[in-house]
Each structure stands twice: as C-alpha cells, then as structure tokens.
C-alpha cells in the first residue's frame, strides 16, 4: 500500500512538474478538497503532517527544501468525504489518510486537464455553433425549393402515394437532362479545350482515323479472313454431297450438347408456327385435338360396354307376348336393333 501511495505521489509530482517545472508546495494555509458524494459522511481529517510536493529536476537543493519544510509548523487541513463512519481512532485515521492520498492522486490530473482544455473549449463551441447554423440553412433551402414547385400537379399525387410514378406507369419520359457541356459542374477551359468533370480534368482529343486508313484495314481483313456461311450441316461419318462447296459444309460432332443435325420438326411447319399471329398455337391445338379424339373414343367404348351389360336395356329386346303389344314390341325391337346395328338396318331397308 505504501508503495502504491508513493507511486501515486510520484506521478502527482511528475504531472505537476510538467506544468511549470517548478517546485510546488502546497501552501501552509488551508488546502481544501471538497468532494461531495452520495452515501458519504463528511469527515474532517486533520493531520499535522506537512504535505510538500517537490518537482523532479528542480535546481534547488533537497537539503534546503527539507530545511524549509521543517520550519513550517502550520498544519494542513483537508476536508474529504469518506464512506466510513466518523471515527478518530488511529487505525481509522490511517485508513482515511490512505484514502485521502488516493483521492489526491486521482483528482488533480482531472483538474489539470480541465484547466488545460479551457482554452480549446471556445473553439469547440464555435465549431458546434457553425455546424448547427449550416444544417439550419440547408434545411431552410430544401424547404424553400419544395415550396417553389407548382402545387396540385400529378407529381403531388405520386409523392403522396396515390399514383404510381411515371416510370412504373409505363409512360416513357423523354430524356431532358442538361447538356454536360453547359452543366455548371462541368467546367470548360477556354484556352486549352479541357473539361473538368467529377473532380478530374480531361482534354478533348480528336479522332484521327481517316477514310483511307479505314479502307486499308478492310482490305487487310478481307485478305486475312476468308469465310463462307455454312449451308450444309453434316454429322461425322456422313458423305459430302456432290457439287457442294466444301467451305459451306459444317461438321457437327455427334455429342454436341445443344444441337442436333436431325430436325425434329418440319421446316415448313416451323416457319408457319413463327408467322402465326393469332389463334391457338399448332402443338397446343394438335394436343387438344388428340385429347378430344381420345375422349370420344373412350366414351364410345363405354357406351358399347354399357349397352351389352345393362339389364334394363335387355328388356327392349324381349319379344312381346300379347298380340296387341306384339306390334309395339316389334317396333321397339326394330328400333333397338336399328340403334344397335346402325348401318345394318339401313342396309336391310336398302335391300328391301
């Protein structure tokens, strides 16, 4: 504890020496550190010790200082707040002294810093005030620009969310941005034809390609690259048809992932499909028709099955026992036979 106290005292002396490089002595009159804390009781601690702090590197001799201090008979009275109860017992006083020492070592640097920064606080305040002023001016300018817009336009409806914005309504807005060469952010240099834009300086360099040079390039390419559009696509192993320019043949590998030489669709049909403007597309219609036919076939098959099995229908084929009903029954039978046989009855009638 004593070593800590000495260290703290040493640090205090160092700090104080950095200010004035002079011997600092706590005056013989009262030195009061008042510090009010909650839950603490004010305890007056008196000590007869003379508290002298001596700067390091002082020119004065230590003996002289000690002599001076010894001559002082005044007491140093310090008033501090401690958390303990009032007590004047020796052990308590020692504890309070140690606490007092620790408080002294901690408090002065704070005081020292505050005293040092007192000069800068004015500048900090000025900066804060300036930033607040700028923000206020900016907000005022924004409000003013908003007020300048015409009231009651479609833009107000869009702003309020009642209407979708022009882009989303599919209304093509004509481009009307300022010409970059008249833009105030683009600065033109009058002498050297330079342009300052986005923080960089650019010079306008003219295009130097002439028509003659272009022709030379075209001739060079026509000599270097000889190519004919392929019109015949063959798989590996196929024979080359006669009277065909070999440059127009394209050989396709058999395992090409995204292509096939065999066209699955008729070319004319494909062309017709592409040119179709309205109606159901060909494949959809074909599938629909196929499905329709299948359904009809199924229905007819069910009908046949139902006619042969159903017992109620079988009564129609029964011969009537009564004479009166015989003719009716014959008629019914005939009708049913006609329904069942279809064409055969018509053939019979034709025969007769």
């Amino acid at each position, binding site marked *: 504890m004593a070593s800590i106290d000495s260290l703290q005292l040493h640090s205090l002396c160092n700090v104080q020496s950095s200010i004035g490089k002079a011997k600092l002595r706590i005056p013989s009159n009262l030195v009061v550190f008042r510090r009010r804390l909650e839950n603490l009781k004010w305890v007056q601690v008196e000590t007869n010790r003379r508290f002298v702090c001596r700067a390091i590197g002082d020119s004065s001799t230590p003996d002289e200082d000690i002599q001076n201090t010894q001559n002082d008979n005044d007491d140093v009275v310090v008033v501090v707040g401690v958390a303990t109860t009032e007590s004047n017992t020796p052990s308590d006083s020692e504890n309070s002294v140690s606490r007092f020492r620790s408080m002294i070592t901690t408090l002065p640097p704070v005081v020292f810093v505050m005293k040092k920064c007192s000069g800068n606080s004015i500048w900090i305040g000025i900066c804060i005030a300036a930033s607040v002023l700028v923000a206020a001016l900016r907000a005022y300018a924004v409000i003013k620009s908003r007020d300048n817009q015409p009231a009651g336009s479609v833009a107000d409806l869009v702003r309020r969310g009642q209407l979708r914005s022009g882009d989303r309504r599919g209304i093509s807005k004509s*481009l009307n941005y300022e010409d970059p*060469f008249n833009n105030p952010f683009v600065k033109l240099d009058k002498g050297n034809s330079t342009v300052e834009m986005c923080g960089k*300086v650019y010079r306008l360099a003219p*295009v130097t390609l002439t028509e003659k040079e*272009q022709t030379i390039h075209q001739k060079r390419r*026509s000599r270097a690259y000889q190519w004919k559009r392929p019109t015949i696509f063959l798989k590996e192993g196929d024979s080359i048809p006669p009277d065909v320019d070999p440059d127009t043949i394209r050989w396709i590998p058999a395992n090409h992932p995204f292509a096939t030489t065999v*066209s699955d669709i008729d070319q004319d049909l494909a062309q017709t*499909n*592409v040119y179709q*403007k309205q109606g159901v597309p060909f494949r959809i219609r074909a599938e629909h028709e196929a499905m329709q036919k299948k359904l009809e076939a199924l229905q007819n098959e069910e009908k046949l099955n139902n006619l042969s099995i159903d017992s109620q229908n079988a009564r129609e084929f029964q011969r009537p026992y009564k004479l009166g009903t015989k003719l009716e029954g014959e008629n019914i039978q005939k009708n049913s036979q006609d329904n069942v046989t279809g064409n055969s009855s018509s053939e019979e009638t034709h025969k007769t």
Partner: protein
Amino acid sequence: MASLRLFSTNHQSLLLPSSLSHNPLTSSSPRFVKNPIRRSPIRSVLQFNRKPELAGEKPRIVVITSGKGGVGKTTTTANVGLSLARYGFSVVAIDADLGLRNLDLLLGLENRVNYTCVEVINGDCRLDQALVRDKRWSNFELLCISKPRSKLPMGFGGKALEWLVDALKTRPEGSPDFIIIDCPAGIDAGFITAITPANEAILVTTPDITALRDADRVTGLLECDGIRDIKMIVNRVRTDMIKGEDMMSVLDVQEMLGLSLLGAIPEDSEVIRSTNRGFPLVLNKPPTLAGLAFEQAAWRLVEQDSMKAVMVEEEPKKRGFFSFFGG
C-alpha cells in the same frame, strides 16, 4: 449508309462557348479530320437535349458482338436498348445465346420468361406470347432464343432467326424501330445464327490485346458475311491507367481496328451493382458516367453518327492561393 451530319440548320446552336475558335476542317470534311497534326479545339455538335432522329430504314437490326467473352456485350445490349426505349423508340432485344442466357438477368426479367423461340418454333406458343414486355418501359420487349436445356436444330438456327425478325416486322402492332440481337461469345454456330438477320453491327471490345485480336477476327467475319456498317464501343476504359500508359487509349484501339467509334464507356463499379439488382445502369438517378456514356452511344446509334473526339485525362492544374475564394 450512314448519313454524315456535323451541322444542321434545323437544330439549335452549338453547345460550346463562342470563345472557342471555329474549326474549318470539320465543316469541309464531314467525318474525319484530314490533317491530324493541327490540334484545333473540338466543337461538339451533338445535342443531348433533344430527341434523336431515326436514320436509316425501319426496323434497324443491330447485332452486338465481340468475339471474346466478358467484355460487356450483354451489358451494352441492356443499357443501349433501354436508352433507345427512353428516347421513345420501340425496341425488341433478342438474347441469341443458345445455351447461356443472361440478358433477362441484367434486365431483371428472369421470373417472367416462360416461353422462348424454341417454343414458338415447336408450336407451343405464338410469337407475341414469347415476348416479355418491360413494365418500366412499355416500349421495350425481350425475346429469348432458348432455355438452357432445350435443343435448337443447328440446321436452320439462322433461318429461324430470320423468320422471327420477319414476323416482328409484320406484327399487328407495327414493326419495332430497333431489333437488337445479343450475340454469344465465340465464332461458332451461335455467332453465325445471331448475325444472320443483322444488317449492322456494334463491336464491343476492351482496351487489351486479347480482346482486340478477337475483335479484329470477328470484324473480318462480319465483313465476309456482308455486314459493312460496323461501329465500335470501347468498354471498361480506365483513364487513369491510360494516363499512366498502362492501358491503350481509345484512339490506339481505333488505330488498331480501323472502325468508327460509337462510344467509350468508362470503368464503373456500378455496373456490377446494377447487374445484381436487375436494374440497368442507364436508369440510375443521378446518372453515372458509364450510364451517360451508354446514353450518348445510343444517341449516336439512332442518328448513325460516330464520336469525333474522346476525353483524355490530364493532370489537374495547380491552383493558386486565391482560387480557394472562387478565382
């Protein structure tokens, strides 16, 4: 054939301040500077505050190709296509990549693609049912060639695309103004299919030697197939690397390929973010530099124009003490 217009009396006055001296060379030689040694100030004649006038015959069938993969074909297709739609033109974008479809991802329409060209050819749906209309811009439509696992007969892949384009021309709601075809990478069957119906091409390249060699090869094949109107977009341009001579400049690229310049797109990390969101770059507010460059490229495409000057980064000039106060 591209119409060469530098000055038009119907248009508004020129944009740059009058203090810049008049360049007699640009008025006499419409397209190119005859004497490259004389470095006279460049006057811009492009007017971005008016709607561009459509040049050429409708529909304009443009294939966007590159040869090398990953240079930005699909990004260019999405952004230029939407820019054209914003200008008021009707656009149909066709993703002609047979196996790896991703134009729908860039546009954020991947959940709405139900039918593709394969279903149209097979007769499973009509052509208008396979077109996906963008809800943000109703005059922009997407058509995908195939789903990843379906097969398209290679024998008539190119013919099928020709039929599709022809059917789009004769559809009841009218022919679109632009049909933009996103070509797959390489010079294989997919490339041959995609370039079949096109009558003009945009070659997308980056300023590195591998992309340039492939681009040169593709340009030769396009010219062999009869496509003569080929313009170039240089993508992923890093002006700081060009300034430090670590990257070829746009003019160097042009010197190597010998093609007219449609646009120079700066490198922008916003491209990746826009891809992740399914929201093309040109729709960003405020617009980014790359988005502005795409819009300008679309503007030139409509008017069949090309770039007359490129921007080269320079060292910022040192400011004096009083420049802080607005001098």
